[in-house]
């Protein structure tokens, strides 16, 4: 077998870096259906996984792809899929199944322009709210957003670690530009890569309860075939995993599904600040738009405008506290994103009227230029 971790310096695309990150994280199953601009993740893993003892399957469509990933995860294997807008839409129902059944897995969406087939295959960031609420019902979800090939390498590892820790599908929302651009990616030695695997049940198999939470609010997870009694259903279920059609069970189950995220926000929410300490205007951005924003901050500073950037690395759960704290000290917010204001509205909500919030956005198809941002900074404040 080939070494699982390609230690060294590489000049690769974000998509390939994502695939390498998955392998470094211990992913050994990929079920997918190719779609630009995520195809290279699928393609690269089809070449790499068999060589490291993993399994690659091209399924008949995206519904089957995510279904295969959930099934593979229940055999104890770290699993993932990758897609883009139209495929992401098809995956929504089974992402909900993954949430309800607490199935660890990673779903990568390299965003392109929507709705529908959109503008194949230009960049956009229009799936941010779909990632949050695309499957029906209430739930908490973890969504990460990378700004570079190097970051998507690490973020894919983080996504696996979080999915294994909290037992749920973790989504990576990249975009066409980050997916297709090439930059230097440093892959460290295996000993410098921290990976987490789901906790396994201990104790008597006959007394085992599939969804009895451990100390961190998350139930240990056995693999199918180990002798534990396993019943996996999307119906509201009790701690044994059996359907229980009562209001109380629904309440209890939902408290567990949402509590394991809400009680660990500090561990899950990651942001990065740039020249924010003395900033009067806080730019909020993520993914490729955050790189536009970094340029815009420098340009604005040269003109005497005190701008800074809060880059969202975790999109969901939303960094409400960070926005609220900023709202108490800045003159206003400018959200930069390639959509018509999906995160902008969240910023506005969290600012709660303490500071005005503006949007620099457009419906996708091209990157936002730093000059466009600077112009808004000049005019709005």
């Amino acid at each position: 077998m080939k070494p699982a971790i390609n230690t060294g310096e590489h000049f690769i695309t974000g998509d390939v870096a994502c695939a390498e990150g998955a392998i470094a994280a211990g992913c050994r199953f990929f079920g997918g259906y190719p779609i630009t601009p995520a195809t290279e993740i699928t393609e690269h893993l089809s070449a790499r996984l068999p060589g490291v003892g993993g399994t690659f399957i091209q399924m008949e469509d995206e519904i089957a792809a995510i279904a295969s990933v959930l099934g593979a995860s229940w055999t104890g294997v770290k699993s993932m899929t990758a897609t883009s807008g139209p495929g992401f839409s098809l995956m929504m129902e089974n992402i909900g199944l993954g949430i309800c059944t607490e199935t660890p897995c990673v779903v990568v969406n390299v965003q392109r322009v929507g709705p529908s087939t959109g503008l194949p295959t230009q960049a956009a960031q229009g799936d941010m709210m779909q990632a949050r609420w695309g499957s029906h019902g209430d739930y908490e979800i973890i969504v990460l957003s990378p700004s570079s090939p190097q970051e998507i390498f690490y973020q894919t590892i983080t996504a696996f670690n979080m999915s294994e820790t909290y037992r749920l599908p973790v989504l990576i929302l990249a975009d066409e530009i980050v997916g297709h651009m090439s930059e230097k990616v440093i892959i460290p030695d295996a000993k410098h890569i921290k990976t987490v695997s789901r906790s396994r049940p201990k104790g008597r198999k006959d007394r085992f309860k599939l969804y009895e939470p451990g100390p961190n609010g998350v139930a240990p997870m056995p693999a199918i075939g180990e002798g534990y009694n396993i019943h996996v259903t999307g119906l509201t279920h009790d701690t044994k995993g059996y359907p229980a059609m009562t209001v109380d069970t629904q309440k209890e189950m939902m408290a567990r599904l949402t509590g394991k995220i809400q009680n660990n926000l500090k561990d899950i929410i990651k942001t990065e600040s740039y020249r924010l300490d003395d900033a009067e205007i806080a730019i909020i951005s993520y993914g490729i738009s955050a790189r536009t924003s970094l340029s815009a901050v420098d340009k604005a500073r040269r003109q005497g405008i005190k701008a800074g950037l809060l880059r969202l690395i975790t999109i969901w759960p939303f960094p409400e506290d960070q926005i609220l704290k900023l709202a108490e000290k800045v003159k206003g917010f400018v959200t930069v994103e390639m959509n018509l204001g999906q995160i902008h509205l969240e910023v506005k909500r969290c600012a709660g009227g303490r500071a005005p919030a503006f949007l620099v956005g457009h419906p996708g198809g091209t990157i936002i230029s730093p000059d466009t941002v600077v112009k808004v900074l000049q005019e709005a404040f």
Partner: protein
Amino acid sequence: MTDKQKKKKAKKEVIITGFGGQGIIMAGRIIGMSAALGDHMHSVFTQSYGPESRGGACSAQVIISDAQIHYPYVMRPDILICMSQGGYDKFISEIKQEGILLIERDLVRPGALKRNFFSIPATRMAEDLGRKMMANIIMVGFCVSVTKVISKDAALDSVAKSVPKGTEEVNIRAFNKGYDYGLAILKGRGKKAAGQTGVTG
């Protein structure tokens, strides 16, 4: 301030343009890879995506800098490499005043252009070497000697890593052809400049 000045000085933006099938994307990738892995600079390589990669106009962009690169696209190229007339027509207005223009001599007619440029019959030279598809590698060699945007050693490494297995040797020969052609032009212009004061390039 010195930091910023240094940053500005050390940043180079490159556009390579031609039509699909000429290896424009590979040429861009080789330049970006050489800068990142061989010369230990920061570099970003992007490409135009879509039907153009299958026959139409096509372009690759590379930014090389000694500082971290934020915005990943070229604003105005310091170096413009044109391997087709369509690409030339599209990008010629964007090159910086002091930028360096390189063209495929047989495929680009610059018309009444009032600026210096460097030209090379890369496709014909590739045909002479037995593989028309190596015109891109010849062009990369030409670019390296004329612009020095990346080091020759780094470029040779990237060429060997990027071309199909078994063709490394012939591609390195192609690179050297382009490189030497560029050196000869520079030498010729040097002599001309020494003989006729006031005329450069």
